[in-house]
């Protein structure tokens, strides 16, 4: 029972973990993709292959291994640039993940550009990674942090942005391209258009969008853009910060150390060219190289197909879920406005209890606050359960999931 758009049977063969059993004999149903995705064998082998055949530190040596490793590492940069359609490869900075990317911006750009009484605007549906760094910056600089609210359909109340912008004191607006709890796809174009008019900077947290839909940075006219490899078939420990060249050039470095310098003297140092100025120390070479293969994999499927598949699956799941008595679903039910992330609560079953119960049936979902406690407060819940899909998930798996939810209801006698 696959969706109509992609050949899931052949895709699933590339993911050896999907053959494993959990709790002795239950086939794994992995619905925790918003947390991290599984990796195709091609990515796993690309990493091994690096270590088996051309492992070396990069950039500074002239021996053959170093040249091969450097070429492969830098090749990923080109691939990322193409994947999100940016012109200048030197605008792609490799970091550990979305979290580090955003912290790089708050430390390097923020401390230079945000001052007392300035306003930083974020939203109520942000991941902690896009709240806490700004709180730290606000505390250090005396700036104010303001939130765009979320309406009952799970969408941002953009009128509130107008109010903030009218103050003339907003320095940056930062928001997630897609909510990791509600699945809402943010109306980025509208926000960016408004910000452009007031010359306000925009950061897009794309941790949940780049893995699941086509993104074109030459159309999306933001200033900073961050995402993680591990949420898009890639290895853990790699992420990307993209920023406009002029901005990166104007920013002081974040971490100091090897590779990011031009000349070090005892009391003064000059910086290397972009993007190296922001890549201090030995980077995560093997995993950056592995990430390249993940992008290849997604490109071969086609991001439009990935999106279509997830829409079909999400619609299928929402239809079935909404028929369960006692089911509370969060976020919009307009499929075009959301990604393949479904948050819910079932009766008075606490999400942790629910996750434990359905884990017994082999189903991995996430339960808790999903690093979005501000949103939990807004929704007035302590936690939700969250199922999130990716290219290897099937309608059949959704059926097993639904049956497991009925079992949970029985156990809780509701």
């Amino acid at each position, binding site marked *: 029972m696959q969706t109509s758009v992609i050949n899931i049977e052949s895709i699933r063969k590339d993911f050896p973990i999907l053959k494993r059993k959990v709790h002795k004999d239950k086939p794994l149903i992995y619905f925790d993709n918003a947390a991290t995705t599984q990796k195709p064998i091609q990515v796993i082998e690309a990493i091994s292959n690096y270590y088996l055949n051309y492992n070396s530190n990069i950039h500074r040596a002239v021996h053959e291994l170093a040249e091969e490793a450097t070429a492969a590492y830098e090749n990923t940069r080109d691939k990322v640039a193409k994947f999100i359609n940016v012109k200048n490869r030197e605008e792609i900075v490799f970091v550990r993940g979305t979290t580090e990317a955003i912290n790089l911006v708050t430390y390097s750009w923020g401390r230079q550009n945000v001052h007392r009484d300035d306003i930083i605007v974020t939203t109520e549906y942000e991941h902690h990674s896009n709240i806490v760094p700004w709180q730290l910056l606000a505390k250090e600089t005396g700036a104010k942090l303001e939130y765009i609210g979320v309406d009952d359909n799970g969408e941002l109340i953009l009128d509130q942005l107008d109010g903030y912008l009218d103050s003339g004191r907003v320095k940056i607006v930062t928001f997630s391209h897609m909510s990791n709890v509600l699945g809402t796809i943010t109306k980025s174009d509208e926000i960016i258009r408004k910000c452009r008019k007031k010359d306000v900077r925009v950061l897009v947290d794309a941790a949940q969008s780049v893995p699941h839909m086509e993104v074109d940075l030459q159309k999306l006219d933001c200033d900073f853009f961050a995402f993680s490899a591990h949420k898009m078939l890639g290895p853990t420990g790699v992420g990307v910060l993209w920023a406009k060249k002029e901005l990166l050039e104007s920013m002081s470095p974040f971490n100091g150390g090897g590779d990011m310098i031009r000349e070090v003297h005892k009391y003064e140092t000059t910086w290397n060219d972009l993007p190296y100025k922001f890549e201090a120390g030995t980077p995560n070479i093997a995993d950056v190289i592995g990430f390249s293969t993940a992008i290849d994999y997604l490109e071969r499927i086609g991001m439009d197909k990935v999106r279509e598949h997830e829409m079909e699956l999400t619609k299928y799941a929402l239809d079935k879920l909404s028929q369960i008595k006692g089911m509370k679903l969060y976020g919009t039910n307009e499929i075009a406005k959301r990604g393949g992330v479904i948050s819910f609560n079932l009766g*008075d*079953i*606490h*999400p*942790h*209890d629910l996750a*434990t*119960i359905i884990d*017994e049936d082999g189903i991995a979902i996430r*339960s*808790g*606050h999903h690093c979005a*406690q501000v949103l*939990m407060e807004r929704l007035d819940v*302590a*936690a939700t359960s969250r199922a999130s899909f990716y290219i290897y998930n099937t309608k059949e798996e959704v059926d097993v999931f639904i049956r497991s939810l009925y079992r*949970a209801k029985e*156990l*809780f*006698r509701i």
Partner: protein
Amino acid sequence: MSSADIYREIILDYYRNPRNYGKIQNPDIAQKDSNPLCGDELEMHLNIKDNKVADVKFTGKGCAISQASASMLTELIIGKDFEYVKKLTKEDILDNLGLHELGPARIKCALLSLKVLKYGLYSYLSEKLKDTASADRIKEEASGLY
């Protein structure tokens, strides 16, 4: 252990109808904690009189395991000697709940209330009774619980 074993009638009952739920005015011990990984919160209030637990109440939000565990813990210690409370172990709690072999994530739910209790005892022993030796031992126990 399987869900059917965890979510027995009695656990669900304590989850839905928690005994000793609430707060104490001017408690001798008031301690609060949360589990940063799952967001569960728990606060315990105790009154100590004549070396006994004269009253105990809790408030919190969280899963069936953490709430039932907290509620059953209050019942376990109310009226008991202070010494008894000081000696409570992880195993006592799990025995009392009838929950064993919980996974590493869920055992934290079962033990959150004991952790809160122990930290409460620690403050009480060190600040009010000036018994730093016992206090330190209990703090050590609390931080090593999970």
